């Protein structure tokens, strides 16, 4: 798809009105460019929420007791509800919700690569809450604060509150596992070792490589990828340092921002769950890896779609 580099008169008019504070409320207010950018944003948002559900559900079986399993299944329930909010808005824009969930092939979903990975123990489950849900809050609270699309702004009030619980669940458990020391803390460190770079990559292309962002032009979000990545590190790096967990990033006093301590981006060995810091990649190569999808993509989608097919067969 090639977006026009120069917006036409109608697009420019909408962009100008949005810059002056105009809120888009319905399809009649939109230009084709705005609608396209909004559909992409909502699809990524809904798919991200949806694909966290099978990942978290499988990991909930590693919960150390019944109350922590209830916590994770409640989080799964929240995430499905959040996916429904995005898909429900997409329905108003003429996209078929049933097709979104049940009609697409596994590789057609637009969630981040992080949710194509297996969460194989309790440490990985709680780091997912601490890191991935923190990324979710970082991205969505920016959308909530800045979006020019009224229905989404209102819908995100509930989403933001619930994501706070997920994050607090993750951070509270990360502190507990670190405090326990020994093998428990080592498992936490191993989870952080692959999940920290995974989340950094999630925020996408660095600003200096990004030519044009429809999402910023139409004020569907407010902050750039690099700004959001910095906000995420601003919470996550001190959290980890405070509990004695090592992360490959540090506060750079001179630059006044967080610096990443490895060639970013770089290759990932999904089977071994290991980042290959000696194999730097271009972002085009990262996009290829994302497009090929990760090891759990088909299984997670099958969990969601298979149950529905089974129900139809009865």
């Amino acid at each position, binding site marked *: 798809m090639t977006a026009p580099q120069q917006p036409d008169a109608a697009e420019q008019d909408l962009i100008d009105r949005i810059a002056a504070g105009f809120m888009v409320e319905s399809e009649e207010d939109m230009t084709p460019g705005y609608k396209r950018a909004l559909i992409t944003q909502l699809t990524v948002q809904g798919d991200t929420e949806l694909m966290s559900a099978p990942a978290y559900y499988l990991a909930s079986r590693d919960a150390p*007791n019944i109350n922590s399993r209830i916590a994770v299944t409640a989080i799964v329930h929240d995430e499905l509800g959040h996916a429904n909010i995005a898909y429900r808005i997409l329905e108003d824009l003429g996209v078929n919700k049933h097709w979104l969930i049940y009609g697409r092939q596994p590789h057609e979903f637009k969630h981040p690569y992080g949710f194509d990975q297996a969460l194989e123990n309790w440490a990985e489950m709680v780091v997912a809450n601490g890191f991935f849900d923190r990324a979710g809050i970082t991205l969505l609270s920016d959308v909530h604060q800045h979006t020019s699309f009224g229905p989404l702004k209102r819908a995100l009030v509930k989403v933001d509150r*619930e994501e706070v*619980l997920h994050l607090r669940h993750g951070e509270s458990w990360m502190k*507990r596992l670190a405090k326990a020391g020994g093998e428990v803390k080592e498992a936490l460190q191993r989870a952080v070792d692959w999940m920290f770079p995974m989340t950094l990559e999630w925020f996408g292309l660095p600003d200096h490589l990004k030519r044009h962002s429809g999402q910023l032009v139409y004020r569907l979000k407010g902050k750039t990828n690099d700004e959001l990545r910095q906000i995420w590190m601003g919470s996550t790096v001190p959290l980890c340092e405070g509990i004695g967990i090592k992360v490959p990033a540090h506060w750079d006093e001179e630059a006044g921002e967080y610096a990443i301590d490895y060639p970013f981006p770089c290759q990932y060995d999904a089977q071994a769950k290991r980042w290959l810091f000696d194999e730097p990649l271009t972002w085009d190569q990262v996009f290829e890896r994302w497009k090929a999808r990760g090891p759990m993509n088909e299984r997670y989608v099958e969990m969601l779609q298979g149950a529905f097919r089974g129900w139809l067969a009865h």
Partner: protein
Amino acid sequence: MAGSLTEADVWDALRGVTDPEYPLSIVDLGMVYDVRVAEGAVAVDMTFTSIGCPAIEMLVYDVREAVNALPDVRDIRVEVVWSPPWTKDRITDRGRRVLTAYGVAC
């Protein structure tokens, strides 16, 4: 040393333990039923807003941490009780104001 800790100190500490979603404390939510202190041994009776509450594990941990952070605490026991059952009538006026500001009917 032991003996200087009072029940009021513990209640104050519990006011710092907040609901996982909204910025109000478990005290303002009316979830703390009783606090007893005897020579540095603290017992807290608390309930939850539902039996399937996903935050039980986390909040019990937070309560223990908050109390343990007080000076002169020798022991902390958190008892989760279900009688009398929690209802929204237990929310304090302050709690009601916070929830109303977030658009939650209470």
